């Protein structure tokens, strides 16, 4: 049996193509049924997010499924097969395992360290499980991948440091105010950047948004969008004491807020802190404001610098994550190796042979050498006959099952029933995976 993945992602394919081959639940089901139906594909899990569409399969033969998957995806997305093939990647065996683990650890994401991918993998797996398109191998692979993703999140700081300017701003605001719920934001200037940051802040439960802009109509338009309130631009200093967070991005050539004004505002709000974000160039807020007690000012350079430093830190954490992935791929491939049919049959035969020899020797010893050569041979032959007869059916059946969906179940049962532990490391890898499965239930 062969594990493989075929897919396209944000690195290999343009968004137009990704949109087309993006798979809804129904499409996933259709694709799975199509491929499972006599194409040599035994198990399948499609994974589709806005940045990727990937199909994980277990196939009976190497390379099996690649063409069929491509054809089916092209059909569903109504795109030419050649165009799709050019943008796609195909990994087999350990390569496929590693690919899924890197996706789960968000190392393959557009923003390394983002947290949504774990949920998306979980959903994709649940759906496939519900549609009964998975069995032993993909069940374990996906459960293990989720564990690996979790391990990377807890053992590395990959998701910790925000890497975009607006999320750095939100994080810093949260270091001043523990909870942004119920806080008031004052937007100065109606630019794209301030809008983006405001959107980010709104998702944190901001209660009030005030908008001040030189042209009142634009302020009102933006205020409507955020269910906020437009304020007269000339009176903005009067509104300053109401704001917990000020985001400024006006096109003004000189400072819009000066130190003295901020000091007065803070006194009027009994020194409750104000967090200033100045994303305008040239700057809107007097840098001296940062020296005022309980006022915290970050300008665009500060935020960019922090985002950059955070990206460097993430890259370092990504290296740690790769090491974890190496280990886990090794574990999984050992478990996989233990499910190989040929070594299992060999091990079974070796065990039976050892038992046969021991028992024959014991029996012969009882006769104290009173047996003729002929009798001895007869006893040996009988023992060998019993062993071969008993092992014949299971051997044939194992070989046959190995090319079937869920065939690993037989191999694993055989190994467990007869305590065929192979080499120790293999058993270790298998046991770890076994624990993971138990945790799931």
């Amino acid at each position, binding site marked *: 049996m062969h594990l493989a993945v075929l897919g396209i992602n944000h690195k290999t394919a343009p968004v137009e193509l990704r949109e087309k081959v993006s798979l809804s639940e129904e499409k996933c089901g259709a694709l799975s049924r199509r491929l499972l139906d006599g194409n040599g594909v035994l198990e399948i899990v499609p994974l589709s997010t806005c940045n990727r569409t990937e199909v994980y399969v277990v196939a009976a033969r190497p390379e099996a499924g690649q063409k069929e998957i491509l054809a089916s995806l092209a059909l569903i997305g109504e795109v030419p097969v050649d165009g799709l093939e050019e943008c796609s990647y195909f990994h087999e065996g350990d390569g496929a395992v590693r690919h899924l683990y890197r996706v789960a650890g968000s190392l393959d994401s557009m923003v390394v360290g983002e947290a949504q991918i774990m949920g998306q993998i979980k959903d994709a797996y649940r759906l496939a499980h519900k549609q009964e398109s998975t069995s032993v191998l993909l069940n374990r692979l996906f459960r293990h991948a989720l564990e690996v993703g979790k391990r990377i999140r807890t053992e590395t*700081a990959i998701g910790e440091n925000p890497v975009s300017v607006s999320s750095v701003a939100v*994080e810093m605001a949260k*270091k*001043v105010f*523990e*909870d942004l719920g119920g806080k008031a934001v004052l937007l100065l200037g109606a630019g794209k950047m301030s809008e983006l940051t405001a959107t980010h802040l709104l998702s944190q439960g901001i209660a009030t948004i005030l908008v001040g802009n030189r042209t009142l109509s634009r302020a009102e338009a933006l205020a409507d969008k955020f269910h906020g309130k437009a304020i007269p631009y000339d009176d903005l200093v009067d509104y300053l004491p109401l704001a917990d967070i000020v985001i400024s991005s006006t096109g003004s050539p000189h400072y819009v807020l000066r130190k003295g004004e901020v000091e007065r505002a803070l006194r009027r709000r009994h*020194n409750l802190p104000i967090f200033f974000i100045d994303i305008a160039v040239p700057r809107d807020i007097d840098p001296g404001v940062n020296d005022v007690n*309980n006022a915290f000012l970050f300008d665009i350079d500060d935020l960019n*610098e922090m985002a950059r*430093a955070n990206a460097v830190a993430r890259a370092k954490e990504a290296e740690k994550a790769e090491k974890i992935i190496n280990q886990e791929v090794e574990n999984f491939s050992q478990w996989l190796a233990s499910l190989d049919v040929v070594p299992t049959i060999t091990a079974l035969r070796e065990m039976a042979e050892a038992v046969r020899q021991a028992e024959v020797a014991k029996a012969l010893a009882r006769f104290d050498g009173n047996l003729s050569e002929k009798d001895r041979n007869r006893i040996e032959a009988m023992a060998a006959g019993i062993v071969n007869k008993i092992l014949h059916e299971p051997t044939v059946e194992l070989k046959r099952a190995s090319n079937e969906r869920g065939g690993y179940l037989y191999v694993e049962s055989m190994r467990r029933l007869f305590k065929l532990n192979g080499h120790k490391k293999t058993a270790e890898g298998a046991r770890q995976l076994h624990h993971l499965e138990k945790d799931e239930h």
Partner: protein
Amino acid sequence: MIVKLEEILFIVTVLTYLVASGVYIWHLISNSQKAGQLGTMLLVLGLFAHTMALIFRWVDSGHAPMSDSYESLAVFSWGIVLFYLIMERIYAIRAAGAVVVPTAFIIASIALVLNKGPNPLVPALQSYWLWIHVSIAMLSYGFFALAFGAGFFYIIQEHLLKKHYQNVVIAFVIMFSVLGLAVGLWLGFGVWAHPLDIVDPVTKEHSNQYSGTDIIKIIGGGGIGLAIGVLLGFLAGKGASKPGFARRLPSLDVLDEVSYRAIAFGFPMVTIGIITGAIWADKAWGRYWSWDPKETWSLITWLFYGAYLHTRLTWGWRGRHSAVIAVLGIVIVLFTYLGVNYLLSGLHTYASA
């Protein structure tokens, strides 16, 4: 036999706290989760040994372990560790352990040095007021220590935010070296130096006379403290300049709130402590108030934290100003608690006898 066991247990406790301090600091710098878990495990072990040591002491001496410097410090550090472990369980604030655990270690190690073995109670202490007065006073000190910790972290976090988490090594070195110098000098004065107690024949007033070796010990203590402070400050500053450090410190909002709440609880406690002390003084010495140094300094403590609450509630002070008061307050608390016993003499000086 039981005495020996108690001493061994206490040595084990102090050593465990030392190792745990290192692990907690490493956890703060590296953000390694394993280090954090190891730190907690060590601390729980240490607390267990500590508890056993206190129980043996109690059984052996026959009274609550609150009668001398060793006992009160041992109980104090025990309370800090217990309180901290509970807070860690509830709020997941392992970063704070990097300050709290070394503090507990320093206090416990001073207790270790001061241990003179169990002793019978001085007659003046033989009263149930010992329990009430001492435990309430200790509780208020505990709250003030918490306010100090939160205030200390407030100042760090505020500085980091103002500097946008860049180039903060110098500030850390300064802050830690001041702290180290203070602890070192105090160790030199209070623990290593043994001044002669001179009684003026006419006025009967006590005064201390420090010898040359004492001076060397004091300066040496300060020097070692300073050196350790500079080193720790450098390491902490390097760690804090890394991105992601911000995440490990609580927000200004929380730190300000914790500091304020702790003082809001500690202030009534110290008030009750002073009142119960006065009642007990009346029973033991026949006077409610005799301007004994301990009494004077507890009044100063009371006024100081009263000032914190006053500036906050009527002048609207908060943030850094309040945090600075909370940090300075601990100096007065420590002087009232320990300094008075060693540097000044009076009715409360049971310990230096």
